[in-house]
């Protein structure tokens, strides 16, 4: 079975540009979350989508936006890139069963902003 997939693997952008990151969850998973992981830190929650609706948003500026499609795949968009946006962007999907909530993470997209 395929795990969570993300594209692209690596990306280099310059300040002020826009970027779109993509995520495909595990088949049957309807919940997708996005996290930003700066080098040496733990992942920080950005967004969570369930059934195409935003269910949670972390402490990130409005330059960050996301959406979920009918097939449950998701996109994360970042406008007006800053140097500080350089990070590993992780997508995670889950299939919640009661109180059990294992998150399956994709390999991530490493974004470098120059």
């Amino acid at each position, binding site marked *: 079975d395929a795990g969570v997939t993300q594209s692209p693997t690596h990306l280099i952008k310059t300040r002020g540009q826009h970027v779109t990151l993509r995520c495909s969850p595990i088949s049957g998973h309807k919940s997708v*979350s996005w996290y930003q992981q700066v080098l040496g830190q*733990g992942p920080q929650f950005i967004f969570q989508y369930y059934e195409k609706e935003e269910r*949670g948003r972390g402490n990130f500026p409005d330059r960050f936006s996301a959406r979920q499609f009918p097939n449950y795949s998701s996109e994360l968009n970042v406008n007006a890139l800053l140097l500080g946006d350089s990070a590993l962007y992780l997508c995670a999907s889950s299939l919640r069963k009661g*109180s059990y909530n294992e*998150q*399956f993470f994709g390999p991530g997209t490493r974004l470098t902003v120059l």
Partner: protein
Amino acid sequence: GQQVMQIPQYQHVQEGEDFTTYCNSSTTLSNIQWYKQRPGGHPVFLIQLVKSGEVKKQKRLTFQFGEAKKNSSLHITATQTTDVGTYFCVLERDYGGSQGNLIFGKGTKLSVKP
């Protein structure tokens, strides 16, 4: 807001030695999860603890949830080089039914000298 403190930040051990990382919260938790992230990799779910005083074992790994559900620990017996990585304790943010909205501790980075 909710947060979790994790200690130590770094741990260097000789192969065969034991290792323990501790996680503390100022608030009572409904559950706690542990993830492992290998160098250059993505977080991988290890376990979720739900019950007060719960102890779970996975081969050489022992996970414990405190009686007050405010702390947790991960103990590795006789470390091996394959144990290298960063271990995160993770809370699920109380977002009224939200799924996948995780709060990561800063993690404990384990290095093992062969």
